[in-house]
């Protein structure tokens, strides 16, 4: 799948917290973690489960830098 977003970090789901509208999904991308907030509908549709392999997709414009 070729998506325009430049950053696709492969990792494993280590935690899922569900709210009523959004859920928090924490992904281990090789020693570091990426936390994603997505709609619970998406979590259900993708059938996300702890331990599963996913890609965390981040558009370049979304990346802040800190020095």
């Amino acid at each position: 799948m070729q998506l325009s977003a430049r950053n696709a970090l492969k990792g494993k789901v280590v935690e899922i917290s569900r709210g009523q509208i959004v859920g928090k999904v924490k992904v281990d991308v090789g020693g570091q973690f990426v936390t994603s907030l997505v709609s619970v509908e998406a979590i259900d549709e993708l059938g996300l489960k702890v331990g599963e392999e996913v890609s965390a997709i981040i558009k370049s414009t979304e990346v802040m830098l800190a020095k």
Partner: protein
Amino acid sequence: MTALFTGNRTASPPNSGPYGNGGMMAEGKVEALLALKREGRPSVGRDRIELLEAVAAHGSISKAAKAVGLSYKAAWDALNAVNNLLPRPAVMGQTGGRQGGGAQVTEDGHALIASFRLLEKRLDKVARLLTGDDLSDGDPFALLWSLGMKTTARNAFRCTVTEVRLGGVNAEVLMHLTPDCQLTAIVTGESVSELDIKPGRDVTALIKSSFVMLIAGDQNPRLSARNRIAGIVSHREDGPVSSEFSLDIGGGKSIVAVITRDAAEDLDLRVGDKAMAFFKSSHVILAVD
């Protein structure tokens, strides 16, 4: 149909300026500008009406743009924005919308122009009465001056809300852009109640073009993003770092995506190609009248 009286104070001498006559005063000119609102939908201002008139007169976007002093791109963007904001398109491309291609104002578009001009004529008479010549006690109309808001968001879609789901802090708003295209916005529950967003209400969904991602072809990948719209690339503009794409998404509507130049090269998307636009619900801002 309601007419909004908006005004601008300009420092130009009386009887000059692009908008003709209005009330007169000693220091500057008070102009009456009509912003047309129809049943609660966003306003269509005079500059857009003039552009529509130019398209009708010249039969193409490029000639119309020249006639009103806009670049082709600016005119094209303005017409797409108008189409996105109206229930039915005001202008349609005749030959696929390529640079300089023919364009036609629809029946709806003509009706819009006619009503606008008629109201403007009548309003001009009222303006003369209201503003008068004697403003020696300050400007009593200061508060009336234009409240119209333009935004930098390239995507402003008129939608109808179909469902609202409330969570703790968040709320999910589902809406129809077209009968086949549903959009989802995640906003705070507080804004939903403040703006009285409920099924049946018309809202404008605002999405920055930098939030929109693209995929080539008509694949439907397993992504968490709730909003996906299929379309055909109608415009591509490359900068050194970014590339801007416009997609024709049907029903006279279009979406703009800004991605990296690298991505544009990798996807190799060109005008005429099928593509899918994606954006997260959390990237949608809702506006109401």
